[in-house]
């Protein structure tokens, strides 16, 4: 249980997927100008992250490892993610039309979001069990959402600031992200005290 909690809090707070691991920075910078869009994307990411974790971990453990095909992981994972996204999109469209309206348009984009493939590879690298992979995937999705949510607020403030022309937009956002990222480093001591090193 402690292990699970450690994985969850580490991936959400200390190793924040966007601000410390630099996964999904493209969509982070592209979408944080608007709260509604960023939340829609975040929910879609959580969803796809959990589903793909649940699919890729068994595929790797029971299909690729026994056949000595570990080197195929990149190709297999990206195809699994792409097809999972397609199937999910169709299911949601049919079963939950309101949910589809909310996050449907973000689903196809997620295939090329490096956060998803990145977390799948981390699951394998850290040799997490099935349940640990699920927790890591869910935590990564939540940490993506947390970073998005915080940064929407930062960008709202930035929009009112008087910024030099050549700093406006992405450069200023990156410098602000640096400051937000510093604050996430502060969780290091907290988590070490709770869970030990």
């Amino acid at each position, binding site marked *: 249980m402690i292990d699970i909690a450690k994985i969850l809090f580490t991936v959400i707070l200390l190793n924040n997927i966007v601000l410390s691991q630099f996964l999904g920075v493209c*969509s982070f910078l592209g979408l944080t100008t608007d709260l509604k*869009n960023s939340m829609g994307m975040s929910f879609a990411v959580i969803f796809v992250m959990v589903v793909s974790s649940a699919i890729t971990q068994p595929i790797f453990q029971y299909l690729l490892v026994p056949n000595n095909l570990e080197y195929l992981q990149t190709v297999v994972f990206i195809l699994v993610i792409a097809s999972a996204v397609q199937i999910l999109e169709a299911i949601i469209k049919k079963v939950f039309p309101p949910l589809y309206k909310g996050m449907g348009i973000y689903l196809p*984009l997620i295939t090329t979001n490096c956060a998803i493939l990145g977390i799948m590879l*981390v699951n394998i690298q850290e040799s997490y069990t099935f349940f640990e992979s699920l927790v890591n995937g869910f935590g990564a999705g939540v940490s993506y959402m947390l970073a998005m949510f915080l940064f929407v607020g930062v960008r709202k403030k930035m929009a009112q600031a008087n910024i030099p022309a050549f700093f406006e937009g992405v450069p200023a956002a*990156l*410098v602000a992200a*640096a400051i937000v990222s510093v604050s996430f480093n502060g969780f290091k001591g907290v988590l070490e005290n709770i869970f030990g090193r």
Partner: protein
Amino acid sequence: MADKKSSLSYEFTKGIIKENPLLVLLLGTCPALAVTTSAWDGVGMGLAATFVLVMSNLVISLLRNIIPDRVRIPSYITIIASLVTILQLFLQAYLPDLNKSLGIFIPLITVNCIILGRAEAFANKKPVLISIIDGLGMGVGFTAALFLIGSVREILGSGSFFNIAIPFIGGDNVLQPILIFALPPGGFAIYGLMIAISNKLNARFYARQPAELMDHEHYPGSIYDHHQALLEAETRDTLIAAGQLDGAFPLVKEKKEE
């Protein structure tokens, strides 16, 4: 302008300066932040991405009349993923240290926006040779930008350059390396400053050009473009704005119309 546009040297140099993927088009930001803690890692990542970029442009350009339009994106991703696997096996065998320090960012080249972006915007509809040159130019521009960011971060953050310690910094000296530049926040800050500097230089260059040339077609990704893209992002179809960066999509759209 028309004959200039088709020339090979134009396609090569545009990737390095006018349409630099990292500093002007703002594509492939993830590796730019993650693997630039040292100059050597930056160059290694750049060269790895250049290999995949050139090979994927070559293969996709060769297959451009065979791949059906409706399944082109999955086909491109599969081609790119296979190339990345080849690269990963090569690095594991011959450059294990580099492979270790780049970590999961080698397999993540698969989902790097630059590679899919060039496939979609260029190799998709151009002959083989010019596609290779385009990939090479983009790769060299990417490598150069990663090298710049990596050098600044290594010199400030670790007090060394290409793993060689700089005299008078670190150890017992008064000057100590500024550790934060080697940590994640430093990556964001230095990359942001680099884009700002590149914007400033671009703006200075564009200010000297005749006013009628200041449109998107001639100077994609210029500072004026970022402004325009940011303004439009609110109104534009969210599908276009999402996932990719401000400067990237107008360019892709424009190329499609050609």
